[in-house]
């Protein structure tokens, strides 16, 4: 039922955000610098990770804007079938697509909330680090912040193919 719907999701945007999140996971994993006392290195890696999260939201903004514009909204608010341009290359949306977009907005919205929380956790870890409270013997703040960030990445690893590629 959702095969026509997912063709309207921009794979490029989804793939871009996948690469952004994977890269941010790499920079978060580079936090290992904390264990050898490289405080500036930790600050730098965490700053890059938070910047990636911001890029993720920029892409998501354009993605959501396009959906709103075309009436691709969840449930009863769905008007996508009225916007179909016969000259467009896309297949017309099925009349069942509103159900897919309910799931889409629920899942990506919940994930986006976690990205937001992750930015906060990482910013806190970065502040702790800059205040000198992260040492080779005590680096829990950075460690759990990075672990949380990896989890956000992991969920996206599943959401991207299921919502953007397969449907």
């Amino acid at each position, binding site marked *: *039922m959702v095969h026509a719907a997912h063709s309207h999701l921009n*794979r490029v945007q989804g*793939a871009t955000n*996948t*690469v952004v999140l*994977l*890269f941010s*996971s*790499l920079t*978060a*994993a*580079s936090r*290992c610098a904390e*264990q*050898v006392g490289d405080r500036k290195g930790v600050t730098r890696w965490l700053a890059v990770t938070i910047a990636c999260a911001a890029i993720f939201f920029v892409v998501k903004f354009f993605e959501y804007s396009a959906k709103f514009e075309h*009436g691709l909204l969840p*449930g*009863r*608010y*769905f*008007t996508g*079938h*009225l*916007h*179909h*341009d*016969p000259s467009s290359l896309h297949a017309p949306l099925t*009349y*069942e697509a*509103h*159900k*897919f977009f*309910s*799931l889409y907005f*629920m*899942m990506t919205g919940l994930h986006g909330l976690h990205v937001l929380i992750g930015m906060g956790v990482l910013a806190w870890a970065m502040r702790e680090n800059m205040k000198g409270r992260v040492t*080779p*013997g*005590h*680096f*829990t703040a950075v*460690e759990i912040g990075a*672990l949380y960030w*990896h989890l956000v*990445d*992991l*969920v996206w*690893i*599943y959401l*991207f*193919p*299921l919502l953007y*590629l*397969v449907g």
Partner: protein
Amino acid sequence: MSTAEHDAGAHDHGHADDGAVHAHVSPVIFLIGIFAALIFLTVVTVAVSYVDLGSANTFVAVAVATLKAGLVAAFFMHLRYDHPFNAIIFVLSFVFLGILMVFSLEDINSRGGIDRENGTQYLERRGEVAPGGLQTPSAPAPSEGGGHGAPGPEHH
């Protein structure tokens, strides 16, 4: 694996149960290798999605995603170097995430359809009008056939 000075407070009895926080220090070049593998798998999964394999598409997508998740968990999250019990908890949490998604999909697949003539939702099994209905379009419909935008909830 390099167990450097971060083992300071611990004695020689392994990594797991002395209460201190331990983390494995991976060389950055190794992490970049994992990142490259993740990007490669992303390219693979996008490429495969353009080939119609029927229901195998979903299987391939989930299999590749699981492989990627395994790489992230094992090396970025250091589960590979951790006590196996943590890995068990971790995998179980993803089983529950899977249950959440399967039941959500099942819910979605069993909901009513949209009656395009009347602009209403109906329950497929009973043919009745489902609660909720559709929002009446304010934008002009592409086909200006009469009655399309009529908001009547009743079937004709």
